[in-house]
């Protein structure tokens, strides 16, 4: 019943969801949605670079995204522009530059739709390795920095005062963001990666009472979205990214019923 590519896509999607679950919670808690978007937009530049230099896509995207994150930090220090303006500036200019470069690369046939919205047909065995090994590394690192990162998310001064080194945790987390974008770009597409990070975590927030529960529900939500989304994608021949995100949205809408009950109880 399943073609081989579909099994590959499923395994890849499950790997991605396991990582986006916990990272997505931090994206929500630390208000980093637009930061994620900016990194994801810059990924197009990374992809074009990979094609021109015949380089691994995930690695190239990771490098470019990290670079953009560094530039952002520098701009925040050197200019008086507000953070959201800088994010917009970097997001759109890196996307534009990426598209212009693609225009020059006439000798390569690009599947722009696949890049922007994900393509389950494109997932190779190599990609599976990158997703699962890269994903495991991301989760291990996150576990390692969890305490300082979470404490400084709750209150920076408490974390700093009590010797947890929150600045280092923040820097490492930025690298993890670039890494998750690099490994999930083929599945979800660069325009929708942030959706994969935010929507399952937002759904989880509606139904959780503790941070640990929110992480677990966020992972479950991501897994369900991937499975439902990929089957839809196979059935109706839709792009994998939008199908997964739509499934996540449906789960979010369902979670709204739960939150209404708890608000009623409170009053």
């Amino acid at each position, binding site marked *: 019943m399943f073609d081989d590519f579909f099994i590959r896509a499923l395994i890849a999607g499950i790997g991605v969801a396991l990582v986006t679950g916990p990272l997505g919670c931090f994206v929500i808690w630390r208000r980093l949605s637009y930061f994620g978007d900016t990194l994801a937009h810059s990924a197009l530049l990374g992809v074009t670079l990979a094609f021109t230099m015949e380089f691994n896509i995930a690695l190239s995207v990771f490098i470019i995204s990290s670079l953009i994150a560094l530039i952002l930090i520098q701009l925040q220090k050197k200019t008086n522009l507000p953070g959201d303006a800088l994010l917009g500036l970097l997001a759109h200019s890196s996307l534009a530059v990426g598209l212009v470069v693609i225009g020059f690369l006439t000798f390569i046939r690009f599947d722009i739709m696949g890049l922007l919205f994900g393509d389950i047909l494109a997932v190779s065995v190599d990609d599976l390795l990158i997703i699962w090994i890269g994903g495991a590394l991301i989760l291990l690192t996150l576990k390692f920095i969890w305490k300082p990162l979470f404490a400084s998310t*709750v209150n920076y001064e408490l974390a*700093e*005062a*009590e010797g947890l080194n929150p600045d280092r945790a923040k820097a490492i987390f930025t690298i993890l963001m670039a890494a998750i974008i690099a490994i999930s770009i083929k599945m979800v597409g660069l325009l929708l990666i942030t959706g994969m990070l935010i929507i399952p975590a937002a759904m989880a927030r509606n139904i959780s009472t503790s941070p640990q529960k929110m992480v677990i529900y966020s992972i479950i939500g991501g897994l369900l979205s991937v499975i439902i989304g990929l089957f839809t994608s196979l059935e109706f021949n839709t792009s994998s990214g939008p199908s997964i995100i739509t499934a996540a949205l449906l789960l979010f809408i369902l979670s709204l019923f739960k939150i209404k009950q708890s608000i009623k109880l409170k009053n």
Partner: protein
Amino acid sequence: MRSNQNILVKLNDAGLQINDKWLVKGVSLQVEKGKIVTLIGPNGSGKSTTAKIALGIYKKIEGEVEKYTNKVGYVPQKISIDWTLPLRVNDFMVLTENLNNETIDEALSLTGVVHLKDKNLGDLSGGEFQRVLLARAISKKPDLLVLDEPVQGVDFTGEIALYELIKKISDELNCGILLISHDLHTVMSATDHVVCLNGHVCCSGSPLDVAKNNEYKALFGEQASQILSRYEHKHDHIHTDEGEIKKN
């Protein structure tokens, strides 16, 4: 090198300047094991800033901070917690250190809020939250406690009980406490050393020395000076340099 093994944190002529404005300047003080140092002073005199300098929260400071411990408990004056986080009291207790259930319960019982353990942090009243903050700071049995107005918003009887608790903790854990308070009455009875700030150190010494100081009188008025003097009393013991207690 620290001259005295009991010193936990020492400020040498420390100050902080932000946008060409000195928040506080030329502060020298030290907190030792088992001692309570209290910072007093009017609003905007740099009390919280001094506490944060001692904690190492500010990076670009003038002068020096020597900090000899990393086991620190901090109760900030203001704390803004983002309610996008689902956070129960229990989760908050283990924020910076892993603690077992008994330790958490013990600390929460000491400040009288153990019944709130599974409540959402956002649902607490101001006074309840303050008690949780204090419980969290003491639960990790720190060497150094920095308490920035730890009893704000706590009811009157609770306030006295919490100050007694703070004194007890200082004795039992033999930890040093840097305390900021407006309440001259309650604080003075327990404090070993007072530093009166007004953008700089206006005067410092034992509570009585400070009360007699003319600059202090000018800053707080004659009445405040009387409050302090009322706590004049005989000590039946002295603290040796090694931090031990000697009966007279």
